[in-house]
């Protein structure tokens, strides 16, 4: 008899999530119908290949291949980022063309552009996007700022969800101003005074916010419908998505979009204890976010973009004190629930690789950008599966021969014993299509395990 989730070991949970990934459902919740028996076979082979690479117990049949771009599929299909953000069908078409043409074992889905109309409805301030501060042919831009002030750590630590709803969200969404007036519903305990708590919902700014939310929710649903159909379509054709969703390192949660880079760095000096406490407070939330998504989607892999712990950003001491402890806790929390964390070591992480190798084997999947790949193999590569390292500049200005040589070299360096997946190292927008083909072809050509 199948065990209950709570009774399973982390290994069993991981197996259960892999099994769900292997048995996809359509958007209505029924077993997905594949395009053909061949597609079904390809889908299962691809996941088995990726699973073997991740678990590091046995060799895959060949080195798996990921292609993990940013806006490349949009440009490749000849549409603009603006079209991709506003016309969900065009977006689907572009990302499908990308997957079908390059046939990666793993792809990132069609989520990168996101729903432009939705951002418009809520007046999203955190990003500028095509038609809203950015020309139609460019990708969106993050507007870094102090969306949380230096004096607000206590509010965040005290009640993170209240801080997000009542303080942070009204700052990053122009239309969520009404949230500032939201009552703490934990005050509703007895009949006495109950109604008083609900007064804000009668006030015009709050009602306006809810109106915007209804509209935004409907648009989000529409977009998600398109994405769900895309996922089903691409899965039916035999192509798995690499990840179910994402979570973040607590240092990056605060350093990217709450306090910002400047803010968090000054806090490291002026109020280090508050910063450390806030990161601890966010840790269980980041674990829940990852575990929740993995279980909802039925897919073990959760992406964690790593930003401000890269080489140069922090000294070794600062990294060990501020960045790694809570990131490690997040990863261990995910692993305990059978989830496979997929940190992307963006840029250079050479000085961190050894420190981050302190993890159980066969539980993680690392995207390596420009770190020395031989070193990565000798450090985190001992415990986790690596992918990436084909450089962006090579994909843009190199020749297919150069790309092939690069990939061959990567396979020689990393593929021995398993635990390596050929892939680009950074989320690229531009590339010569023939170079992307060369990367995929080279992996097929040189990647067989005999």
């Amino acid at each position, binding site marked *: 008899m199948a065990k209950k989730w709570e009774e399973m070991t982390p290994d069993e949970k991981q197996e259960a999530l892999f099994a769900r990934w292997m048995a996809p459902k359509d958007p209505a919740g029924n077993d997905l119908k594949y395009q053909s028996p061949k597609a079904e076979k390809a889908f299962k082979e691809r996941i088995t290949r990726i699973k073997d690479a991740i678990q590091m117990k046995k060799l895959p049949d060949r080195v798996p291949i990921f292609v993990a771009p940013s*806006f490349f599929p949009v440009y490749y299909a000849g549409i603009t980022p603006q079209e991709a953000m506003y016309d969900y069908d065009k977006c689907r078409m572009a990302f499908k063309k990308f997957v079908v043409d390059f046939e990666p074992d793993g792809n990132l889905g069609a989520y990168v552009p996101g729903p432009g109309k939705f951002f418009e409805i809520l007046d999203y301030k955190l990003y500028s996007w095509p038609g809203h501060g950015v020309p139609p042919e460019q990708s969106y831009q993050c507007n870094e700022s102090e969306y949380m002030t230096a004096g607000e750590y206590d509010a965040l630590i005290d009640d993170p969800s209240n801080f997000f709803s009542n303080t942070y969200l009204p700052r990053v969404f122009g239309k969520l101003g009404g949230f500032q007036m939201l009552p703490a519903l934990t005050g509703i305990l007895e009949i006495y005074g109950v109604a008083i708590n609900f007064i804000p919902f009668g006030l015009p700014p709050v009602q306006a916010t809810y109106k915007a939310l209804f509209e935004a929710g409907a648009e989000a649903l529409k977009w998600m419908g398109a994405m769900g159909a895309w996922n089903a379509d691409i899965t039916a054709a035999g192509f798995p998505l690499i990840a179910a969703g994402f979570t973040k390192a607590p240092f990056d949660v605060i350093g990217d979009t709450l306090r910002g880079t400047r803010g968090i760095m000054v806090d490291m000096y002026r109020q280090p204890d508050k910063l450390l406490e806030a990161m601890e407070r966010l840790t269980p939330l980041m674990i829940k976010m990852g575990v929740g998504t993995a279980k909802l989607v039925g897919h073990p892999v959760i992406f964690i973009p790593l930003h401000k712990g890269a080489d140069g950003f922090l000294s070794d001491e600062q990294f060990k004190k501020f960045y790694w402890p809570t990131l490690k806790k997040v990863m261990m929390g995910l692993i305990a629930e059978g989830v496979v964390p997929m940190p992307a070591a963006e840029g250079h992480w050479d000085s961190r690789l050894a420190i981050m190798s302190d993890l159980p084997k066969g539980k993680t999947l690392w995207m390596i950008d420009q770190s020395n790949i031989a070193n990565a193999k000798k450090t985190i590569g001992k415990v986790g599966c690596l992918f990436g390292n084909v450089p962006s*500049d090579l994909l843009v200005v190199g020749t297919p021969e150069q790309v092939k040589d690069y990939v061959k070299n990567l396979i020689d360096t990393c593929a021995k014993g398993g635990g390596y997946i050929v892939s680009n190292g950074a989320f690229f*927008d531009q590339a010569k299509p023939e170079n992307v083909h060369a990367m995929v072809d080279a992996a097929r050509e040189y990647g067989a395990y005999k």
Partner: protein
Amino acid sequence: MAKDLSKTLADLKEDEAVAIVRERLNAGEDPLRILDDASRAMETVGKRFSSGEYFIPDLVYSGEILKSINELVKPKLAKGGAARKGGKVIVGTVAGDIHDIGKDIVVFMLDVSGFEVYDLGVDVPAKKFVEKIKESGAPIVGLSGFLTLAYDAMKQTVQAIKDAGLRDKVKIMIGGGQITDEITKFTGADAYGKDAVAGVTLARKWSGAK
């Protein structure tokens, strides 16, 4: 006698540094001398960053302390600051890209190395670089960019400078996480700096050679 401002600031002791400035201002000292000490401290900070002793948070924090000091000193300042001797440099993140952390460090390091830096910010259209070159006469331009889209934007910026007939009047350096020698060739820039220290070295070389 107050403690050494240059040293306290370079060692990032904020409270002490600010206290010293207050004391010296109260004693009626020439604000320019205080700023002089402060800029010597920033030079030290820059050196420590070059040698790998300091990291980005240290630079950012030193900048914050300097800001507080400037705020104290400014009201007492007659007018104008110390003249810059290193020459003029224009720096900006190219169109379509908003990554500014690397660019800010380049600006910081050029500044503490004595250059007069025009920081054009992020997502800077090619024509803004051209206008600034015309207006300031700066002989050195630094383009920063991290996205693959920035490769094209850099190329277009170099082209726009050429089209404006200014290409032989300026040296152009580029930089940013994903920039390499190959990309330098692709964009038509003169050189690339793998970090801010390399940027300063290039700027020194180019301004000295003139």
